[in-house]
């Protein structure tokens, strides 16, 4: 089941005490899609990292389906990411010496034994769904930028996560590839009833989302739902 998101009194400060993020309240229902927009350095990626548990907030709560991940240990947050989130990064972050299938099914390397085969099977299915079904055995360094990002999307989806968090997934792609990937991402999230949160400068991708939030100086300054 897709968990809802409830963020409350969230603050992230730098070591010097500068406020990087200040979000009094943010909620998102299960299955919703959200675009985080704003200028570079506004705090979009920081918010995404806090939501994924990669960064521990200085204060506040980040509650996913009733569980405050800010209070979890590092290993517990890793487990939360493993079981709940699919992460997509701007520059793909692929293992260059592994095949497309090896990258898409990367989570099988550290998953419990019973989950390994299903993850690998799902990885192959997602690659096929993203148009790379015949290329699973190829090393990833032979793929184009758009194809590499599709492999990263397949990796994010292979574990069957109810939530997809994407950080500028189309930033490194040309217009045609960006549009195609954005469409696929939104479609696949919607088909699975997944929550999709993406940081993006891409207006076209943002327009595909159900909700848009604009962040400036670490604060939410515009919310399409407000």
């Amino acid at each position, binding site marked *: 089941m897709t968990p809802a998101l409830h963020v409350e009194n969230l603050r992230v400060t730098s070591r010097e005490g500068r406020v990087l993020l200040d979000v009094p309240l943010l909620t998102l229902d299960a299955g919703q899609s959200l675009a985080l927009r704003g200028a570079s350095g506004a705090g979009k990626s920081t918010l995404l*990292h806090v939501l*994924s548990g*990669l*960064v521990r907030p200085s204060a506040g709560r980040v509650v996913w389906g009733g569980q405050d991940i800010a209070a979890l240990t*590092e*290993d517990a947050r*890793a*487990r*939360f*990411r*493993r*079981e709940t*989130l699919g*992460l997509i*990064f701007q520059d793909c*972050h692929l*293992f*260059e*010496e*592994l095949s497309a299938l*090896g990258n898409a099914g*990367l*989570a099988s*390397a*550290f998953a419990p*034994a019973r989950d*390994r085969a299903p993850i690998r099977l799902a990885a192959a299915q997602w690659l096929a769904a993203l148009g790379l079904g015949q290329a699973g055995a190829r090393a990833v360094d032979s793929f184009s930028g758009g194809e590499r990002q599709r492999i990263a999307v397949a*990796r994010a989806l292979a*574990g069957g996560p109810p939530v997809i968090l994407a950080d500028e997934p189309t930033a490194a792609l040309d217009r045609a590839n960006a549009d195609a990937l954005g469409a696929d991402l939104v479609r696949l999230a919607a088909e699975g009833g997944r929550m999709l949160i993406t940081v993006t400068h891409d207006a076209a991708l943002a327009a595909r989302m159900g909700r848009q939030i604009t962040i400036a100086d670490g604060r939410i300054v515009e919310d399409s739902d407000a």
Partner: protein
Amino acid sequence: MLDLWASLPPELQDVLFALALIAPGLLAGAMVLRGLRPLPLVGAMLRRFVWVNALFVALIAVSVGLGVGLLAQERGLRQGSARAAEKFDLIVAAPGSEVTVMLAAVYLQPSDMALINGAQYAEIAGAEGVAFAAPIAFGDSFQGAPVVGTTVDFVSHLAGPLAEGRVFATAEEAVAGAYAPVDVGGSFTPAHGHGPAAEHDAHEGFAYAVTGRMAPTGSPWDRALLVPVEGVWAVHGLANGHAPGDPRIGPPFVPEMMPGTPAVLVHATELWGNYALKSRFTRGDLMAFFPGTVLAQLHGLMRDVRSAMSLMAVLTQVLVTLSVLIGLMIMVRLIARSLALLRAIGAPLRFVFAVVWAYSAALILSGAGLGLALGWVAARGISAIVTARIDVLVTANLGWPEAHLVAGFISLTLFMALLPAWLAVRRPLLTDLRT
């Protein structure tokens, strides 16, 4: 407990010691890898930085190879020198340095020595329990090969049945060592002395005909040319040990007609008889000694050198271990981004720890394995060179000391590889992810 250990066969002790050495490393590995499957990722990382990894493996291999080669070589040299002296039961010479006589008579390293006279030789040869007493007279050479005067008994005792031809029967015949520079059927004129100072025309007009060739003995005698001692005396213008006109060679010699010999190899009819003979001929005008004992004393004196070499080998391994550790920490930085990705997508810290440790272990084990092979090849190569230089067959094979050295190295480094693995999971995730 010590008694129990001492009661075990040496081979079992070696096996148990090797297992005890490697156990901590393997135990650490078993604990780290339990239930995890990091090898596909480790393989990818190894391929990703293949040249850096290859260089790292090569450095480990060279250092392990040096340690292994050093130990094997030292043991090979010790065993080779002992084997070369095996046939020399008891040597009797004029009083002086046992080491000098041993080097001259056993290892054919030329040296000026006082002579045993005919009466003394007759007493030795005629003593109860003496099977034969062979004079060993050196001082001439041919093309760098020592020409040694002795008897048929000594030739048979040293190398057994000839590999080719027959033993000398006259004072003008010779038997060649296995690798001596004259073929059977050939002849040679000896030079007086050895090396650059040898006088090549001193014995002009005299030639030995080679009638046989000895089987290899693994000693400097393989390059020697053995001639009847009468020939050596005759070629130097001395009496030949027999009555004038007597063409016989070999003992008995007429004491008054015997010019003397620097050393006599005594072979007793019974092994225990050697001790009585040694005792009998250790006196004011003679010196008797067992070359094996002198060699053991020399090896004993060199124990400090051996210990120093072993210590050097261990110290080298310790330094290499530290270098490996520092190298691994640097290598972890190379793979930090991949590790951060694993952590970001939810890999447990224990898995990331296992990936780094297994990556390190792959480098260490490859390097150690390659080093063992390299050490073996190096030891064989150096053995061949040493054998050619000193004419003592040195066979350096890998043995348990080398296995213990490598097992200890592997275990220590595998254990120490826990440190870079621990540091890797403490690295700032987000910083590495953005690298």
